[in-house]
């Protein structure tokens, strides 16, 4: 069901935020909406049930045996956010990870990884034949990045290269 997103819908999502953050989100949304953009488009090349899917989460998830996202750097310079990414293998479970994101409630994904990066759910869809396969690698970055140049120039191309090497057909981006 396609459709417009109404003012009421938009305000509903913001209800859990404090007043200052709400103003910020509204202001940035209006500013970005004013810019006209060329939207890239790659039609899905095969039916979903034949596709290899990769997930990307902006929740700052890293395996416990991997390097954490840099929070001290952000505490020192609050305008900065860690632009790196982490690979999260498809069999990773809740116990394997931690959340490193100063702007989200870490208890959600740390109690159930599938709230933020639904790897178990994706494997269930694979078993049910609704998708072709869950890719060997999935990804997380930390979404508080006010100037995304390094994310776009370094992290994203690295993710893309790995996705292509693994035969990924389509990607779902899951926000905070």
């Amino acid at each position, binding site marked *: 069901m396609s459709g417009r997103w109404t003012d009421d819908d938009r305000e509903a999502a913001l209800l859990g935020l404090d007043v200052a953050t709400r103003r910020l989100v509204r202001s940035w949304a209006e500013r970005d909406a004013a810019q006209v953009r060329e939207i890239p488009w790659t039609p899905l090349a095969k039916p979903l049930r034949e596709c290899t899917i990769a997930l990307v989460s902006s929740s700052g998830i890293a395996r416990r045996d991997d390097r954490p996202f840099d929070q001290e750097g952000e505490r020192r310079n609050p305008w900065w956010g860690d632009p790196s990414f982490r690979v999260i293998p498809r069999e990773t479970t809740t116990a394997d990870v931690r959340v490193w994101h100063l702007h989200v409630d870490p208890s959600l994904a740390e109690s159930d990884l599938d709230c933020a990066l639904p790897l178990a*759910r994706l494997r269930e869809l694979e078993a049910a034949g609704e998708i072709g396969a869950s890719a060997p690698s999935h990804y997380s970055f930390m979404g508080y990045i006010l100037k995304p140049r390094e994310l776009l120039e370094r992290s994203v191309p690295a993710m893309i290269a790995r996705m292509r090497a693994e035969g990924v057909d389509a990607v779902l981006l899951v926000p905070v």
Partner: protein
Amino acid sequence: METAGLSTVSLSTLPDFTQSVGAPRVAGIRFPMGRPLGSPGDADGQRAVLAAALRVLETARAPGELVRLPFQWPEPLESVRNELPEPTPIGQLVRKRPWLYLRFLKGDIPD
């Protein structure tokens, strides 16, 4: 990613915003921020949202299309609270120097 030949879909609780930054396909869900897939422990709910979001890869017809996912949050949305272990560094900075909030609102970020 789309430019590199991968088909993408973005799940979003602020889908008109996601649309405005040029996402090729947007799956909009009227859920609270922080819980786009549903609640911790609700495997059936999460699976349903995941499947519906992935289906938008097939059903979206035109670049920038927003498809509304047919899910309703079971409680009043204002009852959902996100607890942060510490105040955000930017929040602390702006509280100490309130004039910076205006810069932040305008998107004028220092290097």
